[in-house]
């Protein structure tokens, strides 16, 4: 449902993404993982047209991304960033309903949909009338997810969504999110640098290094048969409680 064909990107003389060909299967969750500067965020941003690739094409549901169709394409993709990226001048429910209202959906439909999503992401109802600055980090992130799900897009992209949350809040949200994605059968691409999170979410893990895909497979296959030294080192660099060496 999402295919990248020979996509490359350089900033100045630095190549952040070498020619990359990739496809994502419908209904699966793929985690992009790798150290800082490996190109995982760039790859995600290319998928929604925030960054134009220097070469290659991005195809979503059979259509190639172009300036002419990118608005309509984005309406069919949910995108979640760190801390939710909520607009501070709009109330929580206005943040969630903004695009639907702008596209002319009727008020009753918007209200119903927000109610559904509030329940789905387990947000306290009273949070809906508040402004982002009055909410907790976890609540803001849940709202960011509601906003991404509003028009029920088949594809959800998440760029380090838990990065700013404390461990307990993150733990709860991780559980809720995985349930949501499984229930709704969404295609999900999630960027993280946390191996534990990658294993928890990902049907498949895609390890990037130096602007290239180094290894793709289940977390188990990465652990058992690392493709090279880099993979081994990256896996070993993750500290787990009780595994200090």
């Amino acid at each position, binding site marked *: 449902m999402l295919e990248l064909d020979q996509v490359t990107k350089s900033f100045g003389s630095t190549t952040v993404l070498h020619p990359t060909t990739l496809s994502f299967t419908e209904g699966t969750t793929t985690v992009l993982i790798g150290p800082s500067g490996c190109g995982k965020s760039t790859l995600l941003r290319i998928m929604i047209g*925030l960054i134009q690739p220097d070469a290659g094409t991005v195809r979503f549901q059979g259509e190639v991304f172009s300036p002419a169709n990118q608005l*309509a394409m*984005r309406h069919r993709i949910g995108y979640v960033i*760190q801390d939710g*990226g*909520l*607009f*501070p*001048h709009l109330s929580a429910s206005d943040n969630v309903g903004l695009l639907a209202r702008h596209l002319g959906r009727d008020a009753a439909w918007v209200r119903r949909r927000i109610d559904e999503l509030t329940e789905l992401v387990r947000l306290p109802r009273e949070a809906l009338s508040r402004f982002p*600055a009055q909410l907790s980090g976890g609540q803001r992130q849940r709202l960011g997810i509601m906003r991404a799900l509003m028009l029920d897009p088949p594809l959800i992209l998440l760029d380090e969504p838990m990065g700013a949350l404390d461990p307990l809040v993150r733990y709860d949200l991780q559980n809720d999110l995985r349930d949501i994605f499984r229930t709704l059968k969404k295609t999900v691409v999630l960027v993280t640098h946390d191996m534990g999170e990658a294993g928890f979410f990902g049907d498949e893990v895609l390890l990037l290094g130096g602007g290239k895909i180094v290894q793709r497979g289940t977390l188990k296959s990465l652990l058992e048969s690392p493709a090279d030294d880099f993979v081994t080192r990256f896996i070993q660099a993750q500290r787990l409680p009780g595994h200090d060496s």
Partner: protein
Amino acid sequence: MRHRTVLSIMVVLCGFSETLCWSEDSPVVRVGSKAFTESVVLGEIIEHLISDAGGKPEHLAELGGTQICWKALLAGDIDCYVEYTGTIQQEILTGESIRGDESMRDALALRKVVMSRHLGFNNTYALGMPEDLAEKWKIRTISDLAACPELPRLKMRFSDEFLERADGWRGLRKEYGFPEVAERGIDHSLAYRGLQTGSHHVTDVFTTDAEIRLYHIRVLEDDRGYFPLYHAVMLTRSDLSERAPKVAESLLRLEHQVDNSTMIDLNAKAKLDRIDESRVAAEFLRDRLRLNVTLAGDGRAARLQRSAFRMLDNLLQHLLLVVISLAAAIVVAVPLGVIAYCRPRLGKVILNTVGIVQTLPAMAVLVFTIPILGLGALPAIFALFLYSLLPIVRNTYTGLSNIPENLKESAIVLGLSSSARLRLIELPLASTSILAGIRTAAVINVGTATIGALVGAGGFGQPILTGIRLDDFGLILQGAIPAALLAVGVQAAFGLAENWLVPAGLRFKAN
């Protein structure tokens, strides 16, 4: 004059001249005067003469200087005013070789302006100093002053105009060999007070100033004949003799009627005895030309001082200037700020341009706009409009540029078009900054709007201008205090407006 507010509103609202209001049998004839008492008194005399000859007079008093009067005359905003031959030569026909009155008359005729014969007095520059001091050091002529051993201890202060003019201090200094005076300029009326209080000892005076007698000032003889002659003449548009022949002819009755001592006398009555200029003018016409002038109610200065409505009138005129110029500036500047944000290269040009506009002197803007916009509210509104652009453009641009990158991207990935992003996200997020820019512009505007008086647009600048001219501190305060209060009020009003103009969510920044 009496209906200036109404007039201003009419001019602004309709945009076309008051031609419609002229009736066939009594042509409107407008006389202008500069912002000093002699000019205002002569303006009042002319006003009575117009009336006597069957015209409908209008006196645009206390205009902001030679260039404004001259441009207004050329533009047809006034039909006549009293000018001085020296000024004509130096400031109006600059760079032309004029020898004598006839050649001046010809040069003016080319510009469709008729110059009368001398009214009689020669109001030229001179240096003046307190009589006792002059006597003590035996200073009778300017050469005596230049040669006086006490000169380093004598403080000289001159009016702005005298310091700047080609025929003022610069030339005089060279001619008589004075040392450099690094002083700032001082208002002509205030200069006399300084002589009296001893804060300085020499200043420029005009030979017909009323204060010469009052403050016992010795006018130093210009023994080298440096100062050009400043004979008063009347400048009239040549089309007046077609439009109102009787009036044009009647005005010439003033020729050779006002000599130096008469003028000092008229000035003293108006300025020192505080007799209304209109009455001073009427008495002069009665005594000199056997003209019976009926004074309609109070005169100008009396109206200024007494009427409670005057304050309201000033307030309305002032608000008219501020509100219209600010509204126009908002309509233009906010989109300019948006363009500057969306197109960075064009943005640089825009920001630099409005920055340069801000540095234009108000007087220059007024003088340049009079040929197009005439006198009254319009040139003042235009100048205020220009000065309001910078704060609003800059704050709009800054407000938009300072929106955090992640919010801009959030709006993009939602799939909002650039215009929807601007309307729904970016402008609301920049609203605090934009409003702050508008508030700055408004407060500056309230203060700057006092320049309206220089072009006959009224406002709180009018009592200030008249107060300075008549040395009337109370009158100055009548303009200065309400203008300051208005600025404070505007500031407060914007504070309230912020509560419903800035989105509620943006006021939780503290958490």
